[in-house]
């Protein structure tokens, strides 16, 4: 198989300016003083990245915000140029980085289709051949001759997406945009991507949505701090990503504790946590959170319907009477899915002192594939006073379970169907 994209030892550095806008006066002054580069310094967004992507592969790139994954995509798209190494591509590239970039609001939808498609490098005839398909896909037949300043933001996105997806690239680069639009629109979008896959096109996908990555991609690359991490199996890469996220959280947690110790020593208010998503008086506090699967192995990826155990370690600096441990799980879009605690779960704790741990188990974890956010807290019995509340401190992913075919809504409820024919 031929390679569609070859990234060889690529590095990219950016300039971090001290001044917001550079003006001639400043540049001239620096030039006269003989110091050429004092108004900026360099930092590396990517360092020695190597990728070989074969034609027909679907490859995911994951990483935290600012890890350099979008930079890599822009390098492949030739929007940015590498400072070291080089990138070889074979075939026509289309980017779905921003929908409707270059739309002009005074022009009609149809006129904008021409301008936008020509931006992607298409000739008039090619656009004319695709025009019907684009309009049809967007579902905007009745509005296509109106100026797009009259469009709603949803219509705007639909038009942008229809143009970008209906041009016929060999390599498709996608950055996060699958998160836009309503459910119907997203479905349309996934169908189109599946079609691309079946046609043997190369797709490179950057996303936060690990479930989407897991579902679509043959291979996954993880970029952390400008460096790459790669394993043959996407699930391994995704779990490595969770580990990195978790390590950083743990580090934040530890530095928080140090701060707490210092604060206590200085007789300051103990609740001066640096993170805004954590609060409480800290007589008792959470020291670690771990997720385990049915084999009792720490993990961050679970399948719908699997066993899930959450272990929360705590330390109580003094005796705390009748504490209540609680958790909450949110879907990525913020929907609060559940919020059990030891009080409602009839696990009454008389007091805690020193270290210990709490375990919460789901025999059949009901959430459908996606990314989930996790909150943990320790409260007093009436649930009024927070000892330690850590809002959305962890994420975990749920991926498809081949055994369970449900895909609509948020959760899977074990259930069965029956059918009776009325006797004549």
């Amino acid at each position, binding site marked *: 198989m031929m390679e569609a994209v070859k990234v060889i030892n690529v590095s990219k550095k950016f300039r971090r300016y001290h001044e917001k806008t550079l003006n*001639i006066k400043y540049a001239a002054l620096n030039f006269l003083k003989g110091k050429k580069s004092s108004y900026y310094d360099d930092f590396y967004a990517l360092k020695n990245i190597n990728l070989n992507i074969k034609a027909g592969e679907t490859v995911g790139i994951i990483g935290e915000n600012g890890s350099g994954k979008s930079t890599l995509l822009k390098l492949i798209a030739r929007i940015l140029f590498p400072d070291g190494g080089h990138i070889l591509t074979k075939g026509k590239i289309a980017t779905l980085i921003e929908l409707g970039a270059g739309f002009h609001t005074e022009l009609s939808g149809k006129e904008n289709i021409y301008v936008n498609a020509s931006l992607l*490098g298409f*000739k*008039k005839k090619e656009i004319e051949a695709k025009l019907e398909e684009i309009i049809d896909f967007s579902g905007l037949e009745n509005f296509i001759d109106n100026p797009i300043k009259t469009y709603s933001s949803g219509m705007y996105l639909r038009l942008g997406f229809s143009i970008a997806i209906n041009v016929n690239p060999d390599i498709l680069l996608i950055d996060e945009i699958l998160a836009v639009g309503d459910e119907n629109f997203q479905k349309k979008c996934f169908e189109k991507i599946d079609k691309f896959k079946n046609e043997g096109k190369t797709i490179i996908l950057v996303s936060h949505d690990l479930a989407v990555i897991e579902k679509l991609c043959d291979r996954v690359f993880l970029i952390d701090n400008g460096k790459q991490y790669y394993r043959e199996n996407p699930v391994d890469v995704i779990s490595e990503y969770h580990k990195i996220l978790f390590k950083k959280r743990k580090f934040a947690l530890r530095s928080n504790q140090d701060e707490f110790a210092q604060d206590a020593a200085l007789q300051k208010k103990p609740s001066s946590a640096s993170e805004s998503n954590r609060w409480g008086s800290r007589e008792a506090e959470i020291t670690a959170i771990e997720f385990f699967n049915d084999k009792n192995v720490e993990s961050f990826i679970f399948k719908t319907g699997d066993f899930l155990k959450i272990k929360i370690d705590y330390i109580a600096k003094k005796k705390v009477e009748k504490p209540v441990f609680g958790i909450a799980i949110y879907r990525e879009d913020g929907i609060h899915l559940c919020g059990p605690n030891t009080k409602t779960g009839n696990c009454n704790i008389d007091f805690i002192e020193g270290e210990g741990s709490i375990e919460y188990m789901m025999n059949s974890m009901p959430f459908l594939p996606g990314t989930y956010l996790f909150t943990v807290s320790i409260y007093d019995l009436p649930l009024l006073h927070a000892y330690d509340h850590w809002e959305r401190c962890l994420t975990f992913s749920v991926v498809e379970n081949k055994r369970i075919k449900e895909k609509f809504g948020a959760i899977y409820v074990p259930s069965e169907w029956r059918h009776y024919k009325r006797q004549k």
Partner: protein
Amino acid sequence: MISKLKEIYRFKYLVYSLVSRDLKVKYKGSILGFFWSLLNPLVMLIVYTVAFKYIIRIRVENFPIFFLCAFLPWSFLSSSLSMSVGSIKDNGNLVKKVYFPREVLPLSMVLSNLVQFLLTFLILIPALLLFKIELGLPLLFLPLVIIFQTAFNLGLSFFLSSLNVFFSDVKHLLEIFLQVWFWLTPIIYPIKLVPERFQSLYKLNPSVLFVESYRNLLMNNIGISLSNCVVLFLIGLFSFVLGHMVFNHYNKRFAEEI
């Protein structure tokens, strides 16, 4: 550079659609449509005719024609530059999000101005006939001069639009510079009014030769000497090549700096 030109050629439909978008947006929703682009030179014509013919009393035959023959090419130059200087920066959302040869942006601005310049001949030619100016074979040189001037404009546009990404002062400096340049070009006065000892220095300004060539072709029915033709060609070529070299040098950092 050749491969770059090839690529721009591949994106010719983008250039076409950007030019037509620019023209459409400019005249859409206005009743007078493209006559707005004729209104500006007409108003200027009236203002300068009153000022220079009746108040300052410069003695020039056929002042309106004298003025138009130089002012229209000058507007082509000055509006090309002032419109393309921000073309990269103002299209930051495109430059940062989509790949296409960036040259297309200043190029389409210059071409859009070229189209408007050509349209102004719709009033210039009738005006020439009205003033009973003799038109003849020298007009055949006209397309050549227009092509050289377009290359000249393009080179400067490449230069200015790429510098403007890094120094936002360029736009403001250009405004002032264009005003000075206007008065350094024989648009509202004949070149013979310039003192003898400054003449050779004065003629180093490339716009002088362009304006004089237009005037000779359109008004005086005089062709262009071979040496002037070569000079005009070289001005256009140098401007284009040097401008593009600067542009190409900065091109790689456009998306990061906007």
